[in-house]
């Protein structure tokens, strides 16, 4: 009995030691830089830890907002305004912000996100995820909660999002006054208006998608 307990303790210490060595080596090699994404082991462990950290009651929560075109539209508008700057309108995470984070903003159309329960998605939106770029969006009000449940509906829709929907979202993405001006100018010109008197300025971008 004592021997078994001893073996268990030694085994646990060995695991903790191995994790500490791997973690230490990783930190020594990369420092605090977010330039390289976490390795496979770190990703798997972090996802498991996140999954365990979500209370069962929260995980099993059902979406109180019925599935409908209106719910998806509401979620889409909210997503374009608040989430797309990191996650991209198409949910790919292919944005300047998303690509620069460690861990990278996930491709939400893939199984790693789509296999989460509605309750898990809602919990993550409401509470954020510590040591990642995901902030907590839960304001505590019923209105905020409804918005976040609509976001869950839209996240489920992401694998089927259409190009016209993405174009609609572009109109809802936060823009600088200069970007508004440029969009207006383009629209006016295409509709037959006069060309701007000054040549179009250089636009500055680091690229991105959706």
């Amino acid at each position, binding site marked *: 009995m004592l021997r078994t307990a001893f073996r268990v303790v030694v085994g646990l210490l060995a695991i903790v030691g191995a994790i500490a060595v791997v973690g230490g080596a990783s930190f020594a090699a990369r420092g605090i830089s977010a330039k390289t994404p976490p390795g496979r082991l770190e990703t798997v462990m972090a996802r498991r830890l996140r999954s365990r950290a979500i209370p069962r009651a929260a995980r099993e929560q059902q979406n109180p907002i019925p599935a409908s075109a209106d719910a998806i539209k509401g979620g889409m508008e909210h997503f374009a305004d608040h989430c797309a700057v990191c996650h991209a309108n198409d949910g790919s995470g292919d944005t300047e912000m998303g690509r620069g984070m460690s861990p990278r903003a996930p491709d939400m159309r893939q199984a790693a996100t789509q296999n989460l329960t509605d309750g898990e998605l809602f919990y993550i939106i409401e509470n954020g995820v510590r040591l990642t770029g995901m902030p907590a969006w839960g304001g505590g009000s019923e209105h905020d909660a409804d918005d976040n449940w609509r976001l869950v509906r839209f996240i489920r829709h992401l694998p089927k999002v259409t*190009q016209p929907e993405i174009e609609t979202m572009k109109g809802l993405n936060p823009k600088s006054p200069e970007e508004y001006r440029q969009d207006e100018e*383009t629209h006016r*010109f*295409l509709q*037959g208006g006069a060309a701007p008197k000054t040549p179009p300025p250089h636009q500055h971008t680091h690229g991105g998608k959706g």
Partner: protein
Amino acid sequence: MKRVSAALFLVFAIAPRVLAHEGHLHKLMGTVAAIHGERLQVTTTTGETSEVVVNDKTRILRGVTAQKAADIKPGERIVVVMNESKNQAGKALPTAKEIRLRK
């Protein structure tokens, strides 16, 4: 004095990196003069003719509807957002990133 020198060193060491990063896009407004395969010719609002490469990565939109290069018609108004890449001979080659056409 040492602090001032260190600050100046940092400014001169960092500034070129900040200023030299890539990512400038150019916007071209005008009328489609011709399109032959990947080559799009645009008569700009100032009367010049510019040639732009249209490839499979170019997003072509009429309103919010995706289009193909074959849908671009000579004579219609066009707004092209392009960046400049270089071909194998090192010649600057404007490539259309996004094309907008009248709905």
